[in-house]
């Protein structure tokens, strides 16, 4: 008897649970669909011939499937005056992003390490100034940065862009690593000191291997920001060092004759693809509890 009552109660609870769950899921699917709609429009229209788009129905699936717009956007479309497609600019972007992300992340980690574990007089002020750098708008640094790049002989080059992004990103990467290392047990550093490890050895052998989650966060943040940057790219690059964002703009705005919407859509997706990939790939390395077991939990 008692068991039966118990079962009945449980069943009711399960049923309400199912109903609530269904409602929650319906709501979530609705929002997800709404959010994914632009991507859907871009995707379906990037695989249609131009004629089909001209008929005016942006939402319908392609009647005639073609990858020609993608090929064109990648390799043959008119960018400015050259019919090169986005490919060379895509490569420019990679040549800029990879060193910029790597250097700014590494320097941020070093800054965080020094600011938390090798405290010095006035370290709070230094950190405050670095933090302040996060709030400086892009536009303010344009002219001083142009002057600096000119003096350094890096104007209009990829290394110049790398420098700009490293400098601009340092505030953020330092902030991330400082906060992460602040919670890192100082006793570990002391133990390593007694074991005879020096400044850089502790950094490489103890700190960095335990920094997985924050490295992933920093890399995603820096990669997305630098890849998507338009203002610095358009201000400080020459034709042979323009990043893909600038090329995409040129593709869309400077086409002579017909506006090839399908090619524009394909190009936009191509330009956004790397950031998507970074999210998907790095997300897997978000391992929580990496620090578990270092100290008594």
């Amino acid at each position: 008897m008692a068991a039966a009552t118990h079962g009945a109660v449980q069943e009711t609870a399960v049923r309400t649970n199912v109903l609530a769950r269904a409602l929650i899921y319906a709501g979530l699917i609705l929002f997800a669909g709404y959010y994914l709609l632009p991507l859907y429009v871009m995707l379906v229209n990037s695989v249609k011939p131009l004629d089909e788009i001209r008929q005016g129905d942006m939402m319908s699936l392609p009647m005639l499937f073609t990858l020609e717009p993608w090929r064109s956007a990648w390799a043959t479309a008119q960018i400015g005056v050259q019919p090169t497609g986005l490919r060379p600019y895509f490569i420019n972007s990679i040549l800029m992003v990879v060193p910029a992300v790597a250097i700014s992340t590494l320097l941020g980690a070093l800054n965080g390490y020094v600011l938390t574990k090798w405290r010095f007089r006035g370290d709070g002020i230094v950190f405050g100034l670095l933090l302040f750098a996060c709030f400086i708008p892009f536009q303010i640094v344009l002219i001083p940065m142009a002057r600096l790049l000119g003096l350094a002989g890096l104007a209009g080059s990829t290394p110049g862009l790398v420098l700009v992004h490293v400098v601009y990103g340092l505030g953020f990467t330092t902030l991330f690593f400082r906060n992460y290392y602040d919670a890192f047990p100082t006793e570990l550093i002391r133990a390593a000191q007694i074991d005879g490890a020096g400044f850089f050895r502790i950094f490489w052998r103890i700190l960095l291997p335990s920094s997985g989650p924050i490295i992933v966060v920093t890399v995603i943040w820096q990669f997305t920001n630098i890849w998507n940057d338009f203002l610095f790219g358009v201000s400080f690059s020459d034709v042979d060092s323009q990043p893909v964002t600038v090329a995409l703009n040129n593709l869309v705005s400077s086409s002579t004759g017909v506006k090839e919407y399908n090619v524009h859509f394909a190009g936009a997706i191509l330009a956004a693809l790397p950031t998507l990939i970074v999210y998907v790939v790095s997300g897997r390395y978000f391992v929580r509890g990496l620090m578990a077991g270092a100290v008594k939990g």
Partner: protein
Amino acid sequence: MAFLEISDLYKRFGSVEVLKGINLAVEEGGFLVLVGPSGCGKSTLLNTIAGLESITSGEIRINGRVVNNLHPSQRDIAMVFQSYALYPNMTVAQNIAFGMEMRGVPKAEREKAVAEVAKTLQISHLLGRKPSQLSGGQRQRVAMGRALVRNPQVFLFDEPLSNLDAKLRVDMRTEIKRLHQSMKTTIVYVTHDQIEAMTLATQIAVLKDGVLQQFGTPHEIYNNPANIFVADFMGSPAMNLIPARIEANGGGVAVVMTRDGAEPLQLKVGSHSRLGAHAGREVIFGLRPEAITDLSGADRTSPGVVNAECHVEVVEPAGADTYVVTRLGGREVIGRMRSDMQVAPHSTVPFAFNMDKAVFFDPESEFRIA
């Protein structure tokens, strides 16, 4: 000359003086325990010995060598931290071998040393694991292994047992003592647990507010405390500290304590000749609970046992003993009676006071007077 010598050590953080003129000396193979309440400077003192904190003035000598300005890795010390501080990204074996790796010891030699230490501590089966896969007690052992493998001149322990549960703590305490007996290496050990201090130490240094209160063997610290703080801090239950008055009594002196609703209690003090000078003065009379017993539980070899009837307020059976609380001089006074004594609360029973164990303090300066 002592093996580890600390002379006139001062440490300031800005304007705050954390250590005020510490003088200590430990013989080779000694086990020095630094004990005191939190914030007394004991961990700072240990860190200065390790070289993790600089000192403001004074001198630290290990085996005759002044180490004031040496880097921690060059002082020939090894340290076990309160949090164990195991490198989370390395296996147990790598953790233990890290120091040797830093010193450039060849790989084969490292592996041999690790295996040896692992065998001593019975952690051989854990060598391939990461710290996160170990229990608290196992982490503790690995942390000790990392120190042992170095074979240093001095071991430093910073509250190594405070993160373990009660039973494991007692086991590890015994193990540390056994290790010390077999290795005969000098150890400096920080704890706030006075029982740990008593059981492990060959010498105890009691600190309070950065001042060394007393330095001596566990026996000295326990039986001859230098001041009220040491008397009160060491021992559990704590020493009874009773406001009292010294009066001349026939040929000798007696200590007189007020009582609620009864005549003041007068206890004759036999052997304290120095106390005569304090006749007529207020003192703090200290007597440990085990010196206040039932009549048949009293120490028969002691000539100074005085019996007196006292009113019992509370009875606390503790298994092996029964603690009986009475009130003297306005303070709760705990006596330790045999567990088979039938004592009822609010009754009046005879107590035996072993006055040979009595200590007396000046209520103003809090220093020992007799």
